[in-house]
């Protein structure tokens, strides 16, 4: 527990102080964003086994809800963050029936739900409400420092959520459900309720993250915040490091996002190649991520 708390505090502290030493705040912000999303994936996949390829749907819903609540309702950006989180949770509530599915069926249905949300938001007929395909301009609320601070706080929340799940009875119940749903039910665990809690917690993190992204970036389009790449990056980062741990997604995000920043923008073709090889290698040789290497060597991963 202490190791996990120290890991979380060190990570948050690193990103809180990093702008003092490193000028590219946008890169730091994006890294934090993917850390939060990777931990959100971790909450769901690591503790329940559901792999949400449509996770970006919550992110996009949070981005649009946060931005529109500033533009249409005149809310402060901080309150808009809360709205982003709440709307993502409401989307999660609507999609709860997807939890009846499993494996590839869940992944496909979840992806379809995110795509449906994208088409609703980008529909030109809804231009009066969402500005349709023309995107959002939130320049009126632009504040890079405050939105960066909000993402640091969100990172703290995401890490605290995973620490809680790693050391609480809810987390233990979720791990039991992930192992064997029927045995878990026969041990008195309310499988539907516990899974729904994990699903909504995961949605909340993505929604808050989307709203913080909208605040920081201030101009975005539907295809930006509903891009499948957001889901895939977050999933690969979480799995590369090791799901169901706190440190795994942190390491996965820092290593792979670092790689992306180093070559992904200047030489995208090489990055795509390396990224593809990493995914194939991960599935074939390290299905439990880097964390499993450490555990095999006898070191407990927080």
């Amino acid at each position, binding site marked *: 527990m202490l190791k996990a708390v120290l890991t979380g505090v060190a990570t948050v502290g690193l990103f809180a102080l990093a702008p003092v030493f490193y000028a590219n705040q946008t890169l730091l912000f994006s890294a934090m964003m993917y850390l939060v999303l990777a931990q959100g994936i971790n909450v769901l996949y690591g503790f329940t086994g559901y792999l949400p390829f449509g996770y970006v749907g919550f992110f996009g819903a949070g981005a649009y809800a946060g931005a529109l609540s500033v533009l249409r309702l005149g809310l402060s950006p901080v309150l808009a963050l809360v709205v982003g989180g709440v709307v993502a949770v409401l989307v999660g509530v609507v999609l709860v029936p997807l939890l009846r599915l499993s494996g590839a069926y869940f992944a496909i249905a979840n992806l379809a739900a995110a795509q449906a949300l994208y088409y609703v938001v980008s529909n030109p007929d809804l231009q009066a409400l969402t500005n349709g395909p023309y995107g959002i301009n939130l320049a009126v609320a632009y504040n890079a420092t405050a939105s960066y601070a909000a993402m640091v706080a969100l990172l703290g929340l995401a890490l605290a959520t995973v620490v809680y799940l790693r050391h609480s*009875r809810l987390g*233990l*119940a979720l*791990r*039991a459900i992930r*192992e*064997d749903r*029927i*045995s*878990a*039910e*026969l*041990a*008195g*665990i*309310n*499988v539907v309720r516990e899974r729904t809690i994990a699903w909504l917690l995961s949605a909340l993190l993505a929604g808050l993250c989307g709203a913080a992204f909208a605040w920081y970036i201030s101009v975005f389009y539907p295809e930006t915040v509903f891009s499948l790449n957001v889901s895939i990056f977050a999933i690969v980062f979480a799995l590369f490091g090791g799901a169901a741990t706190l440190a795994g997604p942190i390491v996965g995000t820092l290593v792979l996002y670092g790689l992306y920043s180093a070559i992904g923008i200047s030489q995208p073709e090489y990055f795509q190649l390396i990224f593809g090889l990493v995914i194939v290698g991960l599935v074939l040789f390290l299905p439990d991520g880097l964390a499993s290497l450490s555990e095999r060597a006898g070191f407990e991963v927080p």
Partner: protein
Amino acid sequence: MPVVLRAEAIEAGYGALEVLWDVSFAVEDGQCVILFGANGSGKTTLLRALVGLVPVMAGRIELDGVRVERLAPHERVRRGLGYMSELGIFPDLTVHENLEIGARGLSGQQVRRRAQDAYAIFPDLAPRRREVAGRLSGGQRKMLGLAKALMGRPRLLVLDEPSAGLSPRLIKETIAALRHLHGQGLAMLLAEQNISFLELAQYAYVLEGGRVRFSGTVAQLEHNDAVRRAYFGLTGL
């Protein structure tokens, strides 16, 4: 004696495939009841219907006088039904975490106290409490499954083939553990094919083709020639 579990005219099965017809039985407080029957006779389906894993198409199940046949499995467990299946443990969790899972809804102190009780009954588990359950031997896994089912202090412990996969020595140890628990007043319902478990029971039901073919005390069962020949292949017990 008050009745802990009463099943009346149960019909159950898998989708359109009906497996149990008109099955009725009861377990009294502190009693050990054994369900005998060959493979495919419906024993496991009956237990699964009792705990809610197989839908009951007709009939009623009462636990301490309250109808439970429409409740979800976890609700039946919380009302006092403890279930130990052939596997029944979580191999990737530690021994102690398995016990914690079995004691949902209790305070941390209560969980620790009950875990201590479980380690006292199953001393082999105590030094392995931090070990992953998947590394335990077959017998230790069985003991862990039993200990986990007991953590919730069930009113009735339901056991599906506790002898499955065990050596004769481990079967003896399992029977000794169950005798100890039954001696403390725990009501039990056992589905078994191994006649060694008869010594635990006071009452027996024999299932064949999804119907009850015999019910009576264990003494009556032991003196029923037809049952002995049909199910045990024995001429004397």
